[in-house]
């Protein structure tokens, strides 16, 4: 279902490795994501997908290799600096600010977008007020986009699991990323909700966002990805369009299992 039009490179990993003690979680991995592309990253449990996310977003350090985003070297940058480059991720476990309302979650997500300085804030200069007003407007926009505007004043922690995942996405979107890394966004959602979520992804990508997606729901991955990268034991074992990868015997053996046809 590709519309990978422009061929500008967004993210590239070059011979990257990550070690945890004696365990090599990522072993000499190289792959690229083009601008505007949706890439699925799949692989068995423990293959190193989340670790790859942690690596790209600066939560763990590469043992070897280079990571580039639009030509900027990411190695050694701290997570918030990477986010500032437009690379924002969600987490595999539910991740929201549970004691804050959904609306406040969105506002927090908009953090980097505020224009007021410390002095504006302390001295209550006009720019502070306009900036806050803009942020509030944008927060509403985002909540409408993900369909949470009705929940705005509820504490995020009291929402059901599935909606909390949406809050997570809203948070990430609020940071206005140019590339979004989603770690199992639909796990815990039922089939219908998954379908809704896929529509959301489509809407997001229509805005030109690049997406790297980790997901075990094959219907979802195969449905939205332009390209799929398969990891196993920290190494890439296959790469290509969903159709090709799905038929790769190694992938079927290590990951998809006999029921692959069903997906």
């Amino acid at each position, binding site marked *: 279902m590709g519309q990978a039009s422009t061929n500008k490179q967004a993210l590239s990993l070059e011979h990257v490795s990550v070690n945890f003690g004696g365990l090599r979680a990522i072993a000499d991995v190289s792959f690229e994501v083009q601008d505007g592309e949706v890439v699925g990253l799949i692989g068995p449990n423990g293959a190193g997908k989340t670790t790859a*996310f942690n690596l790209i977003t600066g939560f763990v350090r590469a043992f070897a290799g280079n990571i580039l985003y639009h030509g900027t070297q990411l190695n050694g940058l701290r997570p918030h600096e990477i986010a500032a480059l437009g690379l924002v991720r969600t987490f595999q476990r539910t991740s929201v600010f549970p004691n804050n309302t959904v609306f406040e979650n969105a506002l927090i997500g908009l953090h980097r977008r505020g224009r007021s300085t410390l002095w504006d804030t302390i001295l209550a200069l006009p720019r502070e007020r306009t900036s806050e007003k803009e942020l509030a407007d944008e927060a509403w926009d985002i909540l409408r986009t993900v369909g949470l505007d009705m929940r705005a004043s509820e504490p995020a922690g009291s929402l059901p699991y599935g909606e909390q995942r949406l809050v997570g996405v809203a948070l990430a979107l609020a940071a206005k990323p140019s590339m979004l890394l989603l770690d199992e966004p639909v796990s815990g959602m039922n089939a219908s909700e998954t379908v809704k979520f896929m529509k959301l992804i489509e809407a997001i990508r229509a805005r030109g966002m690049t997406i790297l997606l980790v997901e075990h729901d094959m219907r979802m991955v195969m449905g939205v990805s332009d390209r799929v990268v398969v990891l196993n034991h920290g190494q890439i074992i296959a790469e290509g369009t969903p159709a090709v990868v799905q038929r790769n015997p190694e992938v079927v053996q290590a990951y998809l299992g006999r029921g692959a046809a069903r997906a």
Partner: protein
Amino acid sequence: MAEFLQHLVNALVLGGTYALLGIGLTLIFGIMRIVNFTHGELFAFGAYFVYLFAMLLGFNFFIAFAIAVVGGCLLGAAIEFILLRPLRGADIETTMLVTIGAWIIMQNTELLVWGGVAKAITTPFPETPLVIGAISVSPLRVFVLVIALVLIGGTYALIHRTKLGMGMRATFQDSETAELMGLNIRGIYTATFSIGSGLAAAAGALLGPVFLAAPTMGDLASLKAFAIVILGGLGNITGATIGGFLLAIIEELGAGYISSGYRDAMGFLIIIAVLLVKPTGLFARAERIG
């Protein structure tokens, strides 16, 4: 050289009780995550228990010691039962505030009952020091070290080698799931706090005769215990033991060779330094993100 060796021997003996204080608190602060300010008071209570039973009621010293340890356990259990149990699930500052309240109440109870004058405790051990070359150490202190090591070993075994210990660790990582596994988690909470308190009382009961029993003796003990726990890494019994000995050595050598005025500062400076280099204490473990 003789002086240096004497310093080391002093440190060893002191380190034993530091370690004891430390492992007691690492159970409560490190594992249960309760910033427990009653720890020092239980230390003081341990000393006063021995004073009460050995000096006032005329019990055998060793029996008085045993009573003090048991008394510390019971007192700890009572604190947990009355003050902390109703606050399960509250955040760390809230429980801390309650232990501060308990600390104030306990210390002033001691003051009211025993007065401000420190009490001396006599023991069956001979006063004359054991002399080995240029080094001398009092028999009482050797006894203190031995008992401390036994208690440390026992606690380690309890936590890491028994089912109850595993249950304790599990409970403090995820109490609800532990409950699901059939554990009586209220009992575990009380037991853990009680054991930690008993160890503090044991340390006090051991040091009371070496020093004196005084109402404010617990304050510094509390501070040091916190320092030891952090030095060794939260909840790490081996770490706390090593941390205890390490702190004693640093203090002893610092006072001996640098400046006695900065004796206590040494320990705290080392803690700051250690945390700067290794932010999770000397014996840390990795956490996973994402």
